[in-house]
C-alpha cells in the first residue's frame, strides 16, 4: 500500500510520473514503433468483423472436444466390454477381435492426444525447455502415462506379474482429454463474460463524428479528429470526444460515465464527455481531447489496470503456484512407489491409477483463477455504477473499513454555499454591509466569498474598489475600501485583530446552530455586522450516512467550519463525531489520529484540496466529476456526487472480497482434499480410491465453478439497508 500511496501523493503535486497510468501512457510516447503497435492494436479491437483470438480458440477447443468425445465412446466400449450388455457377446474376453479392436482404439487415442490434446504437449514441451512446469505439464504427463501403460499392457501383457494388471486405460486418455478441453472452452466463455463491463465501456465511443471542415459538415472517423475541431451533435446522437460546448444547449445523459440517471444540462462553456448521449437539443463543441485521452479512455485504461492488479491475499496463492506443479509430480511418483510396494494386488495397477489421478486432479487452474476472476467482475461492476476502483488492493482494504471520514463541504453538502443573512450590528445599513463584504471578497477564491459576491450581485449592489487586499488562510480577508481598513472573517480573525466581538457572540451562535457560517465585518476596528452563508446538505446525504451506520461503520465529519455550524450539519445528517475548525493541511493529521486509535479509515473528499488526507487514509475515496486530478488522488473515485456511492463502493468491495474468499476456499479445499484422496489416503480406512475419470471431471469443472461463482457478482445489486 505504501508505495502506491506515495505515488498518489506525488501525483497530487502534479508529478504523476510514478503512477502506473503514466507509465502506461509513457510506453506509447517513446518511439515510432510503440506508437504504431498501439495504433494497430486499437484498430483491431474496434473491428467487429474480425473474430477475436479468444473466439477462435473457443471454436478450436470445441472441435477438439467433439473429436475426443466421439473417440471416447468406442474406447469405453472396448475397455469395459464385460460390463456392457450386448458388447459382452460381440467382444468376449480374451478374443482376438477384442484385442484388435483395442489396438485400433489405442491408435485412435493417439490421434486424440495429437489433435485434441496437442496444446498440453506443446505447453509441456515449451515449459520443459525453460525448466518450468505449467498447468499443461500435469495433464500431459497424466494422459500420456495412461496411454503408454495401456499400449505396453496390450502388446506385452507377459511383462506384468498378473493378468489383471495388464488392463488398458485408453478411456483415461480420451475422456480426460475431452473433459479438460471442454473445461478450457467453458473457461474462455465465462472469462469473456466477466470482462463484459469493460467491453461495454469501450463500445460506448462512437466510430465517427460530424465535423466542420472548411465550412462544410463532414462525417469522419474519430481517429482523424484532432484537438480544436468543431463537432456538431444532434438529438439522440452520442458525443464522440471530450470538449467544450461552443453554441447551442442540450441535456446530456452521462449515466454511462457517472452512474447518475438524471440528464445534465449543457450550456456554452461547459464540458461534454466522449461516450455520453445527447438527449434533447443540438449543439456544437470544440474538441479538447483526442481519442485515447478522453475521460472515457482514461477510465477504460484504469479499470483494465485495476482488473489486472493483485490483492495482498493472493500472495499466498502466488507462492503456492510457483512450487505447485513440480511438488505434485513428486507426490505422484511417491504415491506410485508406495502403492507399488505396499498396495493390494494388482499393485502396479493401483499405483498407476493413484499417480495419474494425482497428476490430473492437482491442476491448479481453479486456484490461479480464483482471485483474478472475482476482481475483474467486481471492478467491472463498480465501473458500471460510476465507481472507479483503482486497484484490487483498494477493494481488499475497503472491505475491512470500520470508519468513514466525510469532508463536509462538497461531500455532505453541495459545496455551493449561498448568502442567507446580513445582520447590521453597528451604524451601517444592511445594503452597505453587504456592499463592503462583497467588495472585499471579490478577490478571494474561497467558496464562501463566491456566495457573498453572488448574493450582492443578485440584489443589484455595485461593488467598490479594494486596495491592499490580503487573504489570511483559515481566518478571512483584509483590505482598504473607501480609504477605510476593512477586516472580514471568523472569530479567530477578530481575536487576532483585538476587535471586541463578545456582544455578538449570542447572535453568531444562533446562526451557527442553524447550520450557517457567520462572518464578522469590521471597519476601522469597529464591528459593523455579521454576514452568514450556508451550504445546503445534498438530498441523499442523510440516507447514505444512515446506511453507512447500519453497515457498522463509524461516520466522522471533518470540516474547517466552526464547531457550532459543524454540529448543526452533523445533527441534520445524523453524524455523532465531528472534527471542526480543521485547517486543510491538518485533515491528514486527523485521519492519522483515527488510525492510531486502531481504525481502518476511509476518507471521502472532493479529491483536490483533500489530497493529503485521501492519501493518508487507508482508502481514499474521491467525489470527482471525472477530472484527472480527482481520479489521480484516490483509491476509489465516485463519478457522481452523491454519498450513496460510498455505500455502494463498500458494498461492492465486501461482495467482491466475499466472492474471492469463496473461490479461494473452494479451490484450496479442492486441491488440499483432492490430492490426498487421489493419493489413496482414504483407501486403508474406507476403501475409497478416486478414478482418474472423476478426477478429470472434477478438475475441469472446478475451474468452471470458480468462474461461475465470480460471474454471480455480475448480478450484484446495491442493497437498501
Amino acid at each position, binding site marked *: 500500500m505504501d508505495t502506491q500511496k506515495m505515488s498518489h501523493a506525488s501525483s497530487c503535486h502534479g508529478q504523476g510520473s510514478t503512477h502506473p497510468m503514466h507509465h502506461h501512457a509513457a510506453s506509447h510516447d517513446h518511439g515510432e514503433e510503440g506508437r504504431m503497435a498501439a495504433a494497430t*492494436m486499437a484498430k483491431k479491437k474496434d473491428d467487429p468483423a474480425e473474430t477475436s483470438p479468444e473466439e477462435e480458440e473457443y471454436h478450436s477447443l470445441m472441435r477438439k472436444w467433439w473429436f475426443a468425445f466421439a473417440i471416447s465412446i468406442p474406447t469405453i466400449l472396448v475397455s469395459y466390454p464385460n460390463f456392457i450388455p450386448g458388447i459382452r457377446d460381440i467382444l468376449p474376453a480374451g478374443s482376438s477381435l477384442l484385442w484388435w479392436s483395442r489396438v485400433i482404439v489405442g491408435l485412435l487415442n493417439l490421434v486424440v492426444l495429437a489433435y485434441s490434446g496437442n496444446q498440453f504437449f506443446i505447453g509441456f514441451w515449451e515449459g520443459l525447455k525453460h525448466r518450468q512446469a505449467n498447468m499443461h505439464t500435469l495433464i500431459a504427463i497424466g494422459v500420456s502415462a495412461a496411454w503408454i501403460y495401456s499400449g505396453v499392457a496390450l502388446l506385452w501383457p507377459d511383462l506384468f506379474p498378473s493378468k489383471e494388471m495388464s488392463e488398458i486405460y485408453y478411456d483415461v486418455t480420451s475422456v480426460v482429454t475431452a473433459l479438460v478441453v471442454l473445461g478450457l472452452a467453458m473457461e474462455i466463455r465465462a472469462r469473456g463474460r466477466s470482462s463484459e463491463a469493460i467491453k461495454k465501456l469501450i463500445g460506448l465511443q462512437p466510430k465517427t463524428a460530424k465535423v466542420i471542415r472548411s465550412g462544410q459538415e463532414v462525417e469522419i472517423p474519430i481517429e482523424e479528429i484532432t484537438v480544436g475541431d468543431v463537432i456538431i451533435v444532434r438529438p439522440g446522437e452520442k458525443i464522440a470526444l471530450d470538449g467544450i460546448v461552443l453554441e447551442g444547449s442540450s441535456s446530456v445523459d452521462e449515466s454511462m460515465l457517472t452512474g447518475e440517471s438524471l440528464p445534465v444540462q449543457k450550456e456554452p462553456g461547459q464540458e461534454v464527455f466522449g461516450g455520453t448521449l445527447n438527449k434533447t437539443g443540438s449543439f456544437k463543441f470544440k474538441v479538447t481531447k483526442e481519442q485515447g485521452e478522453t475521460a472515457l479512455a482514461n477510465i477504460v485504461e484504469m479499470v483494465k489496470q485495476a482488473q489486472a492488479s493483485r490483492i495482498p491475499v493472493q500472495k499466498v496463492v502466488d507462492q503456492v503456484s510457483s512450487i505447485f506443479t513440480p511438488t505434485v509430480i513428486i507426490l505422484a511418483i511417491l504415491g506410485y512407489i508406495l502403492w507399488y510396494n505396499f498396495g493390494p494386488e494388482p499393485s502396479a495397477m493401483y499405483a498407476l491409477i493413484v499417480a495419474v489421478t494425482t497428476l490430473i486432479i492437482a491442476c491448479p487452474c481453479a486456484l490461479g483463477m480464483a482471485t483474478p476472476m472475482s476482481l475483474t467482475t467486481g471492478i467491472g461492476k463498480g465501473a458500471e455504477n460510476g465507481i472507479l476502483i483503482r486497484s484490487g488492493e483498494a477493494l481488499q482494504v475497503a472491505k475491512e473499513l470500520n470508519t468513514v471520514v466525510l469532508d463536509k463541504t462538497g461531500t455532505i453538502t453541495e459545496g455551493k454555499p449561498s448568502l442567507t443573512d446580513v445582520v447590521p450590528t453597528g451604524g451601517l445599513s444592511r445594503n452597505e454591509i453587504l456592499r463592503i463584504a462583497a467588495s472585499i471578497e471579490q478577490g478571494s477564491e474561497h467558496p464562501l466569498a463566491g456566495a457573498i459576491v453572488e448574493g450582492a450581485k443578485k440584489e443589484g449592489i455595485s461593488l467598490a474598489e479594494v486596495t491592499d487586499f490580503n487573504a489570511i488562510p483559515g481566518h478571512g480577508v483584509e483590505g482598504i475600501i473607501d480609504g477605510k481598513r476593512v477586516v472580514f472573517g471568523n472569530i479567530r480573525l477578530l481575536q487576532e485583530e483585538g476587535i471586541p466581538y463578545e456582544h455578538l457572540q449570542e447572535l453568531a451562535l444562533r446562526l451557527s446552530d442553524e447550520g450557517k457560517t457567520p462572518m464578522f465585518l469590521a471597519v476601522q476596528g469597529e464591528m459593523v455586522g455579521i454576514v452568514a452563508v450556508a451550504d445546503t446538505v445534498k438530498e441523499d446525504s442523510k440516507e447514505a450516512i444512515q446506511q453507512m451506520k447500519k453497515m457498522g461503520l463509524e461516520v466522522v465529519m471533518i470540516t474547517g467550519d466552526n464547531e457550532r455550524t459543524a454540529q448543526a450539519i452533523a445533527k441534520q445528517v445524523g453524524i455523532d463525531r465531528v472534527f471542526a475548525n480543521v485547517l486543510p493541511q491538518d485533515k491528514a493529521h486527523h485521519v492519522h489520529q483515527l488510525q492510531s486509535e486502531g481504525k481502518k479509515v476511509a476518507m471521502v473528499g472532493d479529491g483536490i484540496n483533500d489530497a493529503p488526507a485521501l492519501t493518508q487514509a487507508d482508502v481514499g475515496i474521491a467525489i470527482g466529476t471525472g477530472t484527472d486530478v480527482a481520479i489521480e488522488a484516490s483509491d476509489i473515485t465516485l463519478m457522481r456526487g452523491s454519498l450513496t456511492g460510498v455505500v455502494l463502493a463498500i458494498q461492492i468491495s465486501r461482495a467482491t472480497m466475499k466472492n474471492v474468499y469463496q473461490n479461494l476456499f473452494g479451490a484450496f479445499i479442492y486441491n488440499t482434499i483432492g490430492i490426498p484422496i487421489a493419493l489413496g489416503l482414504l483407501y486403508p480406512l474406507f476403501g475409497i480410491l478416486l478414478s482418474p475419470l472423476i478426477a478429470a471431471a472434477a478438475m475441469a469443472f472446478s475451474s468452471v465453478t470458480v468462474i461461475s461463482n465470480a460471474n454471480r457478482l455480475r448480478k450484484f445489486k446495491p442493497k437498501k439497508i
Partner: protein
Amino acid sequence: MSAWVTGIGLFLIVGIAWFFWGPKGSGTKAEMTASGYQVQTVKVKGAYSPDTVIVQAGKPVRLEFIREDRSPCSEMVIFNDFQKSVTLPYGEKTVVELLPQKPGTYPFTCQMGMYKGKLVVKE
C-alpha cells in the same frame, strides 16, 4: 522388481526437484540500442523465452512481447514490482517499458503465475 521401481522413482524425484528448482542458466542480456534503450524480444509460448533478461540499472528497458500462445492464461504479463500489467494481444508485438533503478531480480508472470520470467538488473 520392487527395489527397481523404488530406486527409479526416487531417482526421478531427485531429478525433477533438481530440474525445476535447481540452479539455471544465466539468461539473455538485453541488447543496447543507439537510442539508449535496452531491448529484448520475449516470445510467449508455453513459457517466456528468454525467461531471464539481464539489464543494466538506471537505463530504460523495452521488452517486446510477442504472444504466440492462444491459451487465455498467457493473455497478460504482470510486473508486480513495477505495479504494471499489460494485456498481450495474440500474435502482435506489445511493448512494455520499464525503468529499473535498483539492481535486483524482478519476476514477471502471467495472471496465474504459471508462466514465469525474471528481469535481472545489474549495476
